[in-house]
């Protein structure tokens, strides 16, 4: 059965949750002008890795990445899977910690952090235990019905105070590609690499057309551009780089007389919290897949609470935002390794596999 819609909504939602918080300031930090360049370069990188990844996967119809790799060579497989597992655990810690900190800064300043972190773990854990991946895929359609409209509403209204003059200069004066040498650019890539691994973990019944994923990522492109450009166009680059979460700040400055809500930030945050939880549950699913198929087949009823408890414990050891940020920076190298090596490795394995089977066919 074709599940293109579900897979592509899952794909969109996991990314949407990541874009609006940390991504804008990383891009703004990486360059002084012409911010579309880092955004577009990141996006091209994103398209490239999912293209390679999906090509690699297409050699093995209906199998997931763990079984594909383990069937080939156990030792070689762990070169890819171990970093991926570590990366997934790491990104989950960061996601839980960062989301709860953002929520604490933005609205719930009196609520203790551990409650928020627990909420960000228990709800996704429940989603996974109850529905497994099939439930998540269906949930993605429901979530997009519920939350995409308010998020788009907020995105549209955030254009209220922009000044188009800040768009210029479109082409930076000297050394247009200087941002490539800036560390923040590589940090910003997390918004592109967060959810793509999932495509390799889908079960065999979730068939999809690669075209659906490409369309999905094309729909994400405006979100990437808006999240960076709205702060720059409203405040100017010099002012925007002073802020911790530029996009959230801009949403706070929007004035709508006819709306009974004073701060429309609530709509955005509600949507993003839902997407964030969805992202975390998808990540738990991937971790669970690697552990159950690659190491030991533990019952999900024990495994998922185990993962949650582990993540929660690690999160409790992160004292402040600075440490979170440092962990985030340290994660960059591993992220790039996973984002580049996994698809390329899979493509090579797939290519060899295809060659071998055509060779085998010829022989018979």
């Amino acid at each position, binding site marked *: 059965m074709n599940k293109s819609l579900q897979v592509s909504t899952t794909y969109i939602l996991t990314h949407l949750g990541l874009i609006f918080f940390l991504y804008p300031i990383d891009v703004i930090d990486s360059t*002084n*002008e012409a911010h579309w360049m880092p955004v577009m370069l990141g996006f091209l990188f994103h398209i490239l890795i999912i293209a390679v990844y999906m090509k690699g996967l297409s050699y093995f119809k209906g199998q997931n990445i763990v079984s594909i790799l383990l069937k080939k060579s156990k030792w070689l497989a762990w070169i890819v899977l171990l970093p991926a597992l570590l990366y997934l655990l790491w990104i989950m810690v960061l996601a839980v910690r960062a989301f709860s900190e953002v929520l604490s*800064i*933005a609205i*719930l*300043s*009196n*609520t203790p952090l551990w*409650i928020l972190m*627990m*909420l960000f773990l*228990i709800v996704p854990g*429940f989603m996974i235990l109850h529905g497994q991946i099939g439930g998540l895929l269906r949930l993605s359609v429901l979530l997009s019905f519920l939350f995409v409209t308010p998020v788009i509403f907020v995105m549209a209204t955030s254009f209220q105070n922009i*000044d188009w*003059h*800040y768009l*210029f*200069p*479109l082409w930076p*004066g*000297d050394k247009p590609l200087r941002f490539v040498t800036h560390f923040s650019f590589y940090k910003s890539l997390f918004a592109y690499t967060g959810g793509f691994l999932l495509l390799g973990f889908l079960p065999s019944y979730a068939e999809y057309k690669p075209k659906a994923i490409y369309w999905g990522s094309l729909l994400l492109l405006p979100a990437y551009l808006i999240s960076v450009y709205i702060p720059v166009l*409203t*405040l*100017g680059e*010099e*002012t925007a780089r*002073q*802020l911790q979460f530029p996009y959230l*700040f801009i949403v*706070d*400055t929007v*004035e709508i*007389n006819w709306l009974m809500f*004073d*701060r429309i930030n609530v709509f955005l945050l509600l949507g993003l919290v839902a997407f964030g939880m969805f992202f975390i549950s998808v990540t738990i699913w991937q971790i669970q897949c690697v552990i159950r198929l690659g190491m030991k087949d533990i019952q999900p009823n024990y495994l998922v609470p185990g993962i949650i408890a582990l993540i929660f414990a690690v999160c409790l050891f992160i004292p402040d935002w600075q440490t979170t940020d440092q962990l985030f920076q340290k994660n960059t190298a591993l992220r790039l390794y996973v984002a580049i090596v996994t698809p390329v490795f899979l493509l090579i394995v797939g290519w060899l596999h295809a060659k071998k089977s055509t060779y085998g066919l010829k022989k018979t």
Partner: protein
Amino acid sequence: MKKRILVCMVFVILLGGCWDNKDINHRALPIAMGISYQQGNYEVFLDIPTVSDKNEGIQVISAKGDTISAAVNKISMNMESQVDLLHLKVLIVDKAFATLGLSEITASTIRSRHISPKTMFVICDEPLDQFFKGINNMKNGDGKEIYDFFQKNSGWNPEIAHTPVWKVFRSIHSYTNDVVLPIIKSGESTAIQSMGSGILRNGKMVSRLSNEQTLLYNVFDGNSLDGKIEVMGKATVQIVSSRIHNESKFVNNQPVLNSTLHLKVIIMDVIGVPSIEVIKTELQTLLRRILDQIFKKMERANADIFGIGQHYREDLPRTELAEWRTKYLPQAKINLEVKTTIRNTGNLKLK
């Protein structure tokens, strides 16, 4: 059974969020905050509407502290309810503080997130204690005038500058954008009296505009409708729509801005029997004169309140743009042309 336990768990988790909730009747929600600064000490005034069946108006409380939040905390400590700045609508500073510089308090309002960045920034022309005593005179109304005065859907007029905190924050860091803040004082027959506006450069008040100039500032900045202009001794007209067209270029390393202001007006009052043409030309000379006054003030103060530098973002590299206010703005040449259309003359014909 399992499901029931789960449902209970969900309730426990969700309702847990309310444990330190403070009900609305235990919160004090100020609508205006006054801040003055003297010798390293902030004095904070809070304007809190009292909620009771008689609607007794407003309560003004003040405290001193090293920082604003320390002063607010002191008020909160001495009050029976908790001060919550979430619904603050107006931030008032006195003139001395504005000339000294507002960058620090702007930064701290933005940082804390307790105060909305949409809060109006206002300068007061008299000492704050006097001002708050004046506006809360019960003869003048119910005490919420300061709130309504700056609301676009109630008391705001095009003669009053309209600048939220985030714009002041932008002006402090931006190379090419400055702001004007409204200046008010307590009035005699009305609670509040508008005294024009102050030009802020990098968060410091450097010059002033009169009410009339502020109206034209608003028109030229593109955010005013239905302002009324008196054409000296001839007529009063009302602006119904305005459009600005700008052309920027560099001539001999000197920024030149050719600006055309298209204004559509309707006639409200006529003195004597002037012809339409006379009113039109008079209006154009008048507008040009006032705007030229503003431009002169702006150049003298090195403050780019119209964001003229914005038009030169493509011509100047960033390092040069950083010096826009000091190096380029003083030599900027603004050629203004005003084109007016008198759309109608009201119910009466004009000979």
